[in-house]
């Protein structure tokens, strides 16, 4: 890797990190696992003057039970998401999704917070955070700020984080009794999702009481398939009716065109995968 020249600091506390970012202005980037940033540095698509490595800040790690929710430290790696017992018990969708990210080497280094802060709509976890109605917590010079996932993803590779803010944690609600499924469609195991669908379903008396659907790589930011959610809510928990609801999953999306699929194909995939994800989440 032959990046442009940059300075590097590795603070041991969150406040130190925030100060370093504030002092550097717009020319600094936070690095944790580096799985998204390093490729940009390698290709010289990003040329920050300062990297603030949060890898030494222990308060960013780990999972805390808060009663109705879990607080997941931003530095928690994909590997830890897959294997953490609290996540397995209360938020299996995150573990199931994290297991599909790239390959073991990436999962051991890449972090939950990094994947969200990078704001890549092709990443798997942003759509999951969106479907979960997660709350993202950031520390800036003025203290902590809570940002709903729905407001976090602003544009392609752009989030609501201010230049001097560090994403510290992600609060996700426990959803007891909800079924879930992440349907990822990709051409090779290591490839990004052509399309991904994160579905959460709450059933009641053979019907879908609640459905939440997050879509990966169906626009410049991860999006909720609200039309399909509305159609599924109140529907029979059957494959046919969920498939009918899923037929609206492409509505309002602006999928990209690239080597892995044109927009119309991606919308088609979103419909098919949403049908499958809803059915699996509903247990039918």
């Amino acid at each position, binding site marked *: 890797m*032959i990046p*442009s*020249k940059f300075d590097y600091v590795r603070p041991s506390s969150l406040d130190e990190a925030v100060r370093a970012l504030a002092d550097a202005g717009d020319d600094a980037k936070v690095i944790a696992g580096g799985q998204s940033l390093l*490729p940009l540095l*390698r*290709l010289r698509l990003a040329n920050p003057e300062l990297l603030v490595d949060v890898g030494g800040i222990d308060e960013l790690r780990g999972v805390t039970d808060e009663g109705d929710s879990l607080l997941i430290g931003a530095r928690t790696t994909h590997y830890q998401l897959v294997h953490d017992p609290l996540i397995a018990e209360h938020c299996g969708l995150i573990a199931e999704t994290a297991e599909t990210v790239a*390959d073991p080497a990436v999962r051991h280094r890449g972090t939950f917070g990094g994947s969200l802060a990078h704001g890549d709509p092709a990443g798997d976890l942003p759509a999951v955070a969106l479907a979960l109605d997660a709350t993202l917590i950031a520390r800036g010079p003025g203290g902590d700020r809570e940002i709903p996932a729905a407001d976090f993803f602003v544009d392609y590779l752009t989030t609501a984080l201010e230049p001097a803010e560090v994403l510290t944690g992600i609060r996700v609600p426990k959803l007891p009794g909800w079924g879930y499924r992440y349907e990822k*469609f990709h*051409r*090779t*195991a*290591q*490839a*990004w999702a*052509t399309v991904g669908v994160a579905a959460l379903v709450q059933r009641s008396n053979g019907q879908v009481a609640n459905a939440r659907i997050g879509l990966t790589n169906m626009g410049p930011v991860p999006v909720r398939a609200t039309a399909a959610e509305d159609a599924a809510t109140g529907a029979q928990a059957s494959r046919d009716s969920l498939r009918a609801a899923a037929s609206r999953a492409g509505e309002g999306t602006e999928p990209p065109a*690239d*080597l*892995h*699929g*044109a927009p119309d*194909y991606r919308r*088609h*995939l979103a419909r*098919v*995968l949403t049908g499958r994800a809803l059915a699996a989440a509903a247990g039918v």
Partner: protein
Amino acid sequence: MTAPTVAHPAELGRARLRKEDARLITGQTNWTDNIVLPGLLHMAFLRSPHAHARITSVNVSAARQLPGVIAAYSGADFADEQGSLPCAWPVTPDIVIPAHPPMAVDEVRYVGEAVAVVVARNRYEAADAIEAIEVDYEPLPPVLDIRTALDEDSPKVHEAGNKSFEWVFGNGDIDAAFSGAPVVVERTYRQQRLIPSAMEPRAVVAASTGDEVTLWSSTQIPHVLRVMLALVTGIPEQNIRVIAPDVGGGFGSKLQVTAEEVLAVLITRKLGRPVKWTESRSEGNMTTHHGRDQWQRIRIAADSDGRIRGLDVDLLADMGAYLMLVTPGIPLLGAFMFNGIYKMDALAFKCTGVFTTKMPTDAYRGAGRPEATFAIERTIDELAVELGLEPLELRARNWIAHEEFPYTTIAGLTYDSGNYEAATAKAKELFRYDELRQEQAERNARNDPVRLGIGISTFTEMCGLAPSRVLGSLSYGAGGWESASIRMLPTGKVEVVTGSSAHGQGHETAWSQIVADQLGVPFEDIRVLHGDTQVSPKGMDTYGSRSLAVGGMALVGACDKVIEKARVIAAGMIEASADDLEWTAGRFSVRGDPEKAVTIGEIALAAFAAHNLPEGVEPSLDSDHTYDPDNFSFPHGTHLCATEIDTETGMVTIRSYVAVDDVGKVVNPLIVEGQVHGGIAQGIAQALYEEGVYDDAGNLVTTTLADYLVPSAADLPSYVTSRTESPSDNRLGVKGVGEAGTIASTPAVVNAIIDALRPLGVSDVIMPCTPERVWRAIQSAQQSGATS
């Protein structure tokens, strides 16, 4: 004299782990990029962002001022001395071979072509300085599609036009074969552009001392490269040393003489300091030669019982912007393979080489034979459908029967051995062919959204390149022989020098096994030396699955000479007549008196001391041998692939894959297995995943491994492999296995996809068969079905 018996089991056929593994797998070895010399400088290249443009100015003065920069040069700075990169295969007398300066001077013709170079104290400074070079371009129109590049109104890549050559070949009366034929099937196939992806990127280090210049390069061809460097640069050949240290894969992409190699040599001589360059993966995707890229029109004529009458092939082959080392010859290596394993009355072949503003193409694993094999095996399936015949039955009606070998094909090659019946029977059994056909019928009957398809590839190929006289008749610039030397050391150990240049094939292991058997010395006592023109001065290097069938046979000849000389010395030592001596397991003994014996090690010591050698015998026990084969060798096999296709998404999953290969006698089954596995993976990659894509402006889109999808173990099935054994005519009975898997597997996979989708009205999907392409093929077949 008592002679200890050298006890060792027969090495031929023994599945040994490779001697090379520890250092290659850990990387604790002399990869070119690991080489550090005192005062080493680093090169970085500025490359064209345009597919086609006139260079109006290059200004390197700002770059020269930057910290750490030692020198910066434009193409014009080297215009007088850089020469033209060579093409060693002028396939026709009137072929157009444009000048190919290592660094562009007046015009760039593909994205990535070098226009300037910086030499700095480290790679970072060199890369930074590249950004300070100013180049003014006057863009010219790109030429991207070989189907329209020959039109009158097409922009021109070179002044002489976009046609490089037209090469025709044929045998039999093609008009008679087609006129009045009850069945004629015509198809057009696309061989997409592939980007070879060796694990180790290209890398060079060059150093000059006095008159001598040494080039370390991650190359397959140190010997050929040395000759070519002399011809291109004018440096006397005797002053050039080329070293290929451990090389991490090539697949043909390092069978090349590159701009970076030539410039490294020129620059180290200019500066008097050693220089290094290692490409990044993205730089490699752009500027390491590409493979394939053809449009194939193929017509087949048959009788109504399926007997093939003739085959007519018309190829358009994308040369890219220039002809590199063997660029024009690659599609022609397939010319003799379109008929495959089948008998027929006539063959006609035409290939037109076309220039485009893209990276030049050249050898890539299989080189011409995968393309040909794909076309014939796909077409045979289409013909079977046309005739309503089971595809294996149609093949059996046309293939060369076991008892017909040796058989001279319509292409004029004499296949020495083979047994297509045996390989196919074995493959069918391992595959559970009949059961799968049954399941397929059931799933079709119930309109299963996940379709099952069965793909067949009964392939052969020509390898062991090659008889020198044949290469001469094809206008190739060099011979096809190989050399070997044996040096018996005074302590009884053995040094083997080979002209083959391994870059992952395991020659050190396989060659040791061959020599161990021939000389009767332990495997562990043998060291194989290669890849340095000062250590191994003669050689034709490694490509075209030639090393075992040619280089291995050179070893056998060299061992013969050592044994012959040893016999004379042994006779003197034992005081017996040479005619009375028997050679077994590394020792000579007197016939009828086995206790009177000397080992090859004892003979070597006697030859070294030379105190008492027989009259006329020179000291030292060693030999040199060169071997020029009489014929190619012809591996064959039957590969069967079952795919499942999710018709809702277009996703193709390989459910099972059976490969029965006949590569003749096997030296090391583990190495053969590895070659077959890797080869199949690369063929599957062409069928499903890989494609080098340029956009409408001629920019390479697939510059990273995120866009150029190389499958990993996670994406590939577990293969069932097996072998049949039809020994070839050479003394070892070996054929070669480096490319067989790649040649065989691509049509097996695509035939399986089409077999699955044919009930839905799909008769072809262009490669790679991505989910989107498969899904669209289904959609369009259903739409046309609905309207018809």
